[in-house]
């Protein structure tokens, strides 16, 4: 297919959006032709969701233009975008689980007979509509009775039926099994035939190669490349997504513990942990004073692995040993009791208690560990907080500021401080440097190294390959919710990691 034979359906030029000083998207161009599937790829923070939110009018753009069929459009909100012909279907399906499939298709525009909403008419129309997509299900049943795949298809059919010209699919396959993905793809193919343009966001590379015609790669809010899918080798795609800079990082490994690594004793030994839909069975051993990096693309199961080890989700099988003793890791409390700590990926939702002060957030984990009765004296709390503010250079006027009012980097430091104060044996850091300015970035990496030197076991999840290569004694590579391999010592390099990820 050639790009110039037909006029573009959607043309986005110079799209820019800035949130509180850091640009989330800067000067991005994006073109979508009728009847093509255009995948937008990138790691977290690349700007994918900002892009679709600007196109669907969730956010107002700072600069740039959006043309639909050659005409400039100004989508005010998702509903307006829908009226213009841009429908979006999200991973968390925006339908009503308690209504029937038929009603979901026609909410807000129910067919009426003699002024009354007619369920029969609704059902008939729904059946007919679904039949055009070769889907034959009982439309009178609750939406929630169907699998995610069917729900997703219902959402797509609804969007298309509302005269959509452009369909945005945000991670549509992340909770589907192989068979369901096939069903969904057949619907997508029939949409292509109708000349609908599809913007696809997904983190499954195999699926990208299977269904998409064109790929745009974003990184840190910028467009780094646009390619026809068949002309783009896997490895090049991954290197674009991860944006490695050869000259800067090659050979810049600073891990010095490699040599005497074998002397350290094992802190945690996990055997055969797994949870369906999250991660396949894996073994993992972490020694004291060792930094284990988890590398893999977004959605590869790296976060899930961390959560399973920390007891947020219970493993369905396997066993774990802490310092040789068998333990059950079925709740964060248990894990913390064994000396674990976790700095989560989603700081706002899973980490911070926003209305509490910096001081209270810092001492919370220690206090929870000590129990409600053994109250940390106020002076001691202050001391902890002030020490941490000084040591981690947390930018706050004082320890009594609500933590929700700090910037992202400082919030991350507060969460780190929370665990440092509670003095864990083993820390899991999930994307500790995301969304953090350069200065803080280096500080956090130094802290990670220092903690390992003090004998703590560390597990760091990061999409920054250079970073992982820099400090890890061992790197665990994941893809598609599966542990692929482990690299140790001199094997560790960005090239090796990417090779492992890209390998078929």
């Amino acid at each position, binding site marked *: 297919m050639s790009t110039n034979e037909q006029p573009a359906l959607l043309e986005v030029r110079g799209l820019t959006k800035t949130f509180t000083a850091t640009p989330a998207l800067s000067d991005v161009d994006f073109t979508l032709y009728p009847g093509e599937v255009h995948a937008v790829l990138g790691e977290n923070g690349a700007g994918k969701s900002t892009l679709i939110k600007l196109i669907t009018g969730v956010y107002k753009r700072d600069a740039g233009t959006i043309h639909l069929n050659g005409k400039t459009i100004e989508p005010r909100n998702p509903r307006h975008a829908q009226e213009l012909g841009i429908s979006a279907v999200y991973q968390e399906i925006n339908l009503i689980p308690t209504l029937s499939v038929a009603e979901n298709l026609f*909410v807000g525009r129910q067919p009426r007979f003699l002024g009354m909403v007619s369920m029969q008419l609704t059902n008939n129309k729904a059946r007919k509509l679904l039949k055009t997509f070769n889907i034959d299900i009982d439309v009178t049943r609750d939406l929630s*009775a169907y699998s995610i795949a069917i729900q997703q298809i219902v959402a797509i059919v609804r969007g298309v039926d509302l005269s959509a010209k452009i369909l945005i699919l945000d991670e549509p396959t992340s909770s*589907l099994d192989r068979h369901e993905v096939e069903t969904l793809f057949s619907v997508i193919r029939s949409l292509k035939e109708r000349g609908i343009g599809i913007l696809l966001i997904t983190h499954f590379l195999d699926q990208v190669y299977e269904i998409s015609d064109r790929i745009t790669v974003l990184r840190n809010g910028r467009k780094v490349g646009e390619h026809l899918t068949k002309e783009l080798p896997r490895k090049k795609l991954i290197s674009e997504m991860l944006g490695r800079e050869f000259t800067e990082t090659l050979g810049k490994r600073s891990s010095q513990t490699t040599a005497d690594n074998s002397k350290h004793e094992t802190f945690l030994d996990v055997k055969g942990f797994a949870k369906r*839909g999250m991660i396949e069975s894996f073994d993992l051993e972490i020694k004291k004073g060792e930094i284990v990096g988890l590398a893999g693309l977004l959605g590869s199961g790296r976060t899930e692995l961390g959560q399973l080890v920390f007891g947020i989700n219970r493993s369905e099988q396997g066993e774990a040993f802490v310092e040789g003793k068998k333990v059950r890791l079925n709740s964060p409390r248990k894990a913390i009791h064994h000396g674990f700590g976790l700095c989560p990926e989603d700081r706002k939702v899973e980490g911070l208690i926003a209305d509490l002060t910096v001081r209270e957030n810092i001492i919370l984990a220690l206090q929870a560990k000590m129990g409600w009765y053994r109250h940390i004296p106020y002076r001691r709390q202050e001391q902890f907080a002030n020490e941490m503010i000084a040591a981690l250079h947390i930018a706050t006027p004082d320890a009594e500021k609500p933590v929700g009012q700090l910037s992202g980097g400082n919030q991350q430091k507060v969460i780190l401080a929370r665990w440092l104060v509670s003095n864990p044996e083993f820390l899991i850091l999930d994307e500790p440097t995301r969304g953090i300015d350069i200065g803080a970035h280096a500080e956090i990496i130094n802290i990670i190294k220092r903690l390992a030197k003090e004998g703590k076991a560390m597990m760091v999840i990061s999409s920054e390959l250079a970073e992982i290569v820099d400090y890890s004694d061992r790197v665990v590579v994941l893809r598609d919710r599966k542990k692929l391999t482990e690299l140790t010592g001199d094997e560790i390099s960005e090239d090796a990691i990417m090779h492992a990820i890209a390998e078929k």
Partner: protein
Amino acid sequence: MKSRFFPLLVTFLVFIAIYAYCYSHFSSFGSMRVVCNLLRDNAHLGIAAIGMTFVIISGGIDLSVGSVIAFTGVFCALMITREGMDPRLAFAIVLGMGTIFGAVMGVFIYYLKIPAFIVTLSGMFLARGMAYVLTTESIRITDPLYIRVSKLVYIFPDKGRFTFAAGAFLAVLVLGIYIAHFTRFGRNVYAMGGNETAALMMGVPVGRTTIMVYTLSSFLATFAGIVLSLSKRSGDSTITVGAEMDIIAAVVIGGTLLTGGVGYVIGTFIGVLLPGVIRTYLTLDGSLSPWWIKIVIGVLLFGFIAMQKLLSTRPRLFSFRRQVRPTNVSTA
């Protein structure tokens, strides 16, 4: 079988079981007399409960209904007896007031984002307080219209008296079912209660629907007050204290999910009658103490809530779902 019918089905079965038990002890449960009395005695609760059903399906709550019923009764009595107003005019005025009252509560809830619980709680204080301010005495109404209405009775062969109140209850029941299932407003209420953000994205006018739901609830509560006033032929500011909790309990027992999105008006009808049946049984029995009714309602309430909890956490146990669980994502 559709999972959303399950709570309703349980309600039906429990009702039939209890009714059958009562019938086996007292054959008068088979007479129209008991049936008509059940309808008459619970008419005001039932009418208000139908309004409450919409509120709860939409995901909200309305604590003001009991007070609104009382205020309506007092207002009508005062206007008719003391001011000599035509009852029809008084009804029209009070219905108008009730409608505005509900709409204002809806505005507070939707536009000012104040929790429905606390808005309708102050609505409850306000309506009850207004009733107290009007009068704390019980006022008898002797208007000819009231006498005429009281004579509007269909008498069954076994002396069962089908009164105006019973008729009004059934009429509102039919109206409620119609609104819930055959109007866009009704369907929108269900959609909103199922998932408000999704409903908004799908083009449901969430703001307007919220306001209309509370308006409908207050309107029906006012109407319930009029019906009660007509059958009691008096106004008293101390009646129906705490009725809102009985009404909410009835709605829950009727199979409406308190989390919103699922519920049936007909279920509420049964949920209202159920305590009435137990009360009748206790009266006929005579040896059992009246407090059992509250305890039984509490037990039923617990049972239904526990069932709802199980339904929402272990759906596969109850609704024979064809759920395909993601098994192996990475076979690609």
